[in-house]
């Protein structure tokens, strides 16, 4: 049954190649793409069932590509954390692909749209499953290559400009990533994550000096912060998100961004947490790299909440508001991670990760829904400028109610998924006893209410503008939005099972021992390679 681990990747890979081969038969291509999307969701569900949800679930499954044993071969690991992240992608990925089929103009440059969106999904999936650092890098690149094309997709001056910035920034980030990967190989003599964790836990037996790991982890952290769009690396987000087609932006915000969050959690907590490295910098001291990660992540998260919230209040287009809101929401995800890294209590650490995961799930579905809704509004009215919109609520009640649910989920109103996300994040802050964090979260939440209600008032209420009066809303697009809104509601109503799933994910993220045991990297003598 371990073959299930690689199935989601194989499904999207075959769909990607299939859509490329059938590019001259639009119907076949669409059928391949959509069955790939559905197959992906089914494969992820089967994997989640097998690894976590089933009664006697093992909790972790590994796959050695090409039958080469760890740490030499390519290892894929599906534990609770990976599977939880994959479930998010399996929600927004198929929705985005079906939406694309209705959204793209008939004779648009579709030829490479489908293969590339499948490759984007492949990169995200691979990053969540990769069991070694180098392959994490490779899957990051697969994901980025596809997203480069999408940012430049429409080919206008502002798209080219956005793509240029995006490519330049990410090339630098990739170079830094590779440098850090090389440094970690030089320090620990291995790139397999389980093997790194094993060696760092007992550096004397492995004959290595773990001290450089802290600095290298800082490099990695900056790279992942760029992907997640945390302040001060948030500047690429608004232009890139506005340039890419809306269904892809939903994927970028819903899935690609979470890869950054996932990598921070996986590397800091599962892999590097066991290293005994004394850290003593001004204000920061402790005995593991986490003591260093925590405060830095906290500053970045706080900055993100403020910059994102304040930026979103002043935007005049739907995508602009959503893009800045994404920056702020990632701050909300990173705050509990930062608290989890700083604390020494195992319970609080687990609660922190859990809060981040639940919040990330909420953000994926809600923000995915809203970006897709921006696409619907644009294809119906021809604009997403808030000045030219108004009265959408009366014009298309179904679209408006879906957007309303998504907006309330961002704000965090019960019984939607967003409420539980916010509740857990606040709970983490209360348990940590940090009043300043609580104040920051409150300010962030107020800003969220401010920008969402402003966008809602201007776009959906008020007098209908000519653009809205002539709008032709696509029913299938709206059906997808309503489906996502139902998912938000379902997560809230069935929160108990979601909580158990997220709890398993948070436990898996902190359980280095089972991770190492499952991958079972064979001992290589000392710090020297044979």
């Amino acid at each position, binding site marked *: 049954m371990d073959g299930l681990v*690689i199935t989601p990747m194989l499904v999207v890979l075959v769909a990607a*190649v299939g859509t490329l081969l059938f*590019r001259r038969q639009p119907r076949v291509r669409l059928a391949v793409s959509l069955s790939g999307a559905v197959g992906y969701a089914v494969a992820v569900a089967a994997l989640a069932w097998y690894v976590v949800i089933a009664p006697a679930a093992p909790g972790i499954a590994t796959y050695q*590509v090409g*039958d080469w044993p760890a740490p030499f071969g390519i290892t894929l690991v599906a534990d609770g954390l990976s599977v939880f992240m994959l479930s998010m992608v399996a929600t927004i990925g198929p929705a985005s692909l079906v939406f694309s089929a209705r959204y793209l103009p008939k004779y648009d440059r579709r030829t490479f749209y489908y293969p590339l969106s499948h490759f984007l999904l492949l990169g995200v999936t691979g990053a969540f499953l990769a069991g070694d650092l180098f392959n994490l890098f490779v899957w990051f690149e697969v994901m980025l290559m596809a997203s480069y094309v999408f940012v430049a997709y429409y080919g206008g001056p502002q798209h080219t400009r956005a793509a240029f910035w995006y490519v330049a920034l990410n090339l630098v980030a990739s170079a830094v990533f590779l440098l850090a990967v090389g440094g970690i190989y030089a320090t620990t003599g291995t790139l397999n994550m389980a093997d790194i964790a094993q060696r760092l836990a007992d550096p004397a037996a492995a004959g290595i000096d773990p001290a450089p790991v802290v600095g290298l982890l800082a490099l990695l952290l900056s790279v992942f912060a760029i992907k997640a769009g945390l302040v001060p690396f948030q500047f690429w987000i608004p232009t890139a998100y506005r340039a890419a087609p809306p269904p892809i932006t939903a994927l970028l915000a819903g899935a690609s961004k979470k890869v950054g969050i996932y990598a921070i959690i996986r590397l800091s907590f599962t892999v590097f947490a066991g290293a005994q490295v004394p850290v003593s910098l001004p204000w920061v001291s402790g005995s593991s790299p986490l003591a260093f990660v925590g405060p830095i992540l906290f500053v970045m998260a706080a900055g993100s909440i403020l910059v994102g919230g304040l930026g979103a209040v002043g935007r005049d287009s739907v995508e602009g508001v959503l893009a800045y809101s994404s920056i702020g929401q990632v701050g909300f995800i990173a705050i509990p991670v930062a608290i989890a890294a700083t604390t020494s209590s195992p319970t609080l650490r687990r609660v922190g990760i859990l809060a981040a995961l639940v919040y990330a799930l909420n953000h994926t579905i809600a923000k995915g829904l809203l970006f897709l809704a921006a696409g619907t509004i644009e294809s119906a009215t021809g604009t997403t400028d808030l000045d030219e919109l108004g009265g959408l609520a009366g014009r298309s009640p179904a679209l408006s109610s879906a957007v309303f649910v998504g907006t309330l989920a961002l704000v965090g109103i019960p019984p939607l998924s967003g409420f539980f996300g916010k509740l857990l994040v606040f709970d983490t802050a209360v348990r940590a006893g940090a009043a300043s964090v609580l104040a920051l979260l409150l300010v962030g939440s107020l800003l969220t209410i401010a920008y969402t209600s402003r966008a809602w008032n201007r776009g959906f209420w008020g007098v209908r503008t000519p653009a809205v009066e002539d709008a032709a809303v696509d029913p299938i697009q709206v059906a997808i939005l309503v489906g996502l809104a139902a998912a938000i509601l379902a997560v809230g109503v069935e929160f108990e099972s979601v909580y158990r799933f997220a709890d398993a994910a948070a436990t898996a993220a902190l359980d280095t021992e089972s991770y190492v045991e499952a991958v079972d990297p064979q001992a290589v003598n000392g710090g020297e390679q044979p």
Partner: protein
Amino acid sequence: MTTVIMRTTARAVVPIILVVALSLFVEGHNLPGGGFIAGVLTTTAFALLYIAFGLDFLERGVLGRDIEPGKTPSRDRVVIAYRRVFSFGLAISVASGLVPLLFDLPFLSQTYVEFENVPLYGHLELASALAFDFGVYCVVVGGLLTILSVVGAE
């Protein structure tokens, strides 16, 4: 660049490049070489032809076709063929990875057979990795030549 020296050199060098590419390709799985580098080398042979004889040489000189006037570079028949090679290579690579699943082995598992006393070659080792490498070769040749001819024409 189409001087007599250039053309004469190209005539002599291109076959050598192609043979070297072939040898790199065949021994790639256990010596330096492989589908990627063989593909790059093959592309340089084509690039040399383009530089020495012009972009239309393949269609007019080798295939003996007429050139449609006023065509856009990305719709060119040769470029379409390159793009097919690219897709075909990708399909071959993925399919070669999927074959082991039929034998209940992990994705991308490989095996090999050895032949002794092969005429001319002596000892020959035929690895299943060759199929994957062939896919990579096609992707590299198809991809690079598409870029080269489209960008070269513009």
